[in-house]
């Protein structure tokens, strides 16, 4: 089987639509008959990343590749970058403003959760340039 490639532009100004890309990937994986636990891991990791993009970075884009062995997600933004990655990876640490907390996010669980639900997690970030996440979930 050839791999399946999906691309999404994530708008940064519409919180209500955030998660639409993750929702679409979930639908695709269901149609392909991928196991529910793999689908959930992919969905949660991508959704956290997508929300982060909207909250912190003014949007970005997401590329997903589904192969016979794995699901690869690349989430790239040109936002402010992460000044202290070590802190950002700690559960409970958040730089999200109060208005984001009122929306139910910004508990400081985003990046730790993404790492927890993926088999491979790599992050490149540079202040003033942006952040890119490289994520991989193995198919069982």
């Amino acid at each position, binding site marked *: 089987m050839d791999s399946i490639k999906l691309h999404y532009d994530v708008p940064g100004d519409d*919180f*209500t639509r*955030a*998660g639409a890309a*993750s*929702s679409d990937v*979930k639908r695709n994986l269901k149609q392909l008959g991928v196991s*529910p636990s793999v689908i*959930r891991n992919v*969905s*949660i990791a991508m*959704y*956290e990343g997508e*929300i982060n993009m909207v909250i912190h970075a003014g949007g970005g884009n997401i590329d997903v590749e589904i192969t016979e062995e794995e699901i690869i997600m690349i989430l790239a933004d040109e936002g402010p970058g992460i000044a202290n990655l070590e802190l950002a990876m700690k559960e409970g640490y958040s730089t999200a403003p109060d208005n984001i*907390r009122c*929306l*139910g*996010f*910004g*508990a*400081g*669980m*985003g990046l730790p*959760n993404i790492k*927890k639900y993926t088999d491979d997690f790599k992050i490149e970030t540079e202040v003033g340039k942006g952040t890119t996440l490289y994520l991989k979930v193995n198919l069982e």
Partner: protein
Amino acid sequence: MKIKDIKEILGAEIICNEEGLEREVYTACGSDMMSDVLAFVKEQAALLTGLVNPQVVRTAEMMDMHCIIFVRGKRPHLDMIEMAEDRDMVMLCTDLEMFTACGKLYAAGLKGGSGK
């Protein structure tokens, strides 16, 4: 516990997807922080929340949750109801506060995320 049992215990009103009331729910998670909910993975769980925005439905979707219960008399907006209907989710509303709603369900045998 079936979703219809939750409805009875909380004296809740059905907002959408009445046909889903026979579904089983094994655990529940109560939070207004969707970030915390996303750290909670359990099969066939129900979500109790006082937060009202479309990301509540998205979060439940990502977690494979089939039932959202709005506490403190909060009511979902029409766009949220449409999203829930598309995803076969049951939405309930109760006037009870979060603590009381969770307490009643726990006392009736529904467990939290750790299964305890």
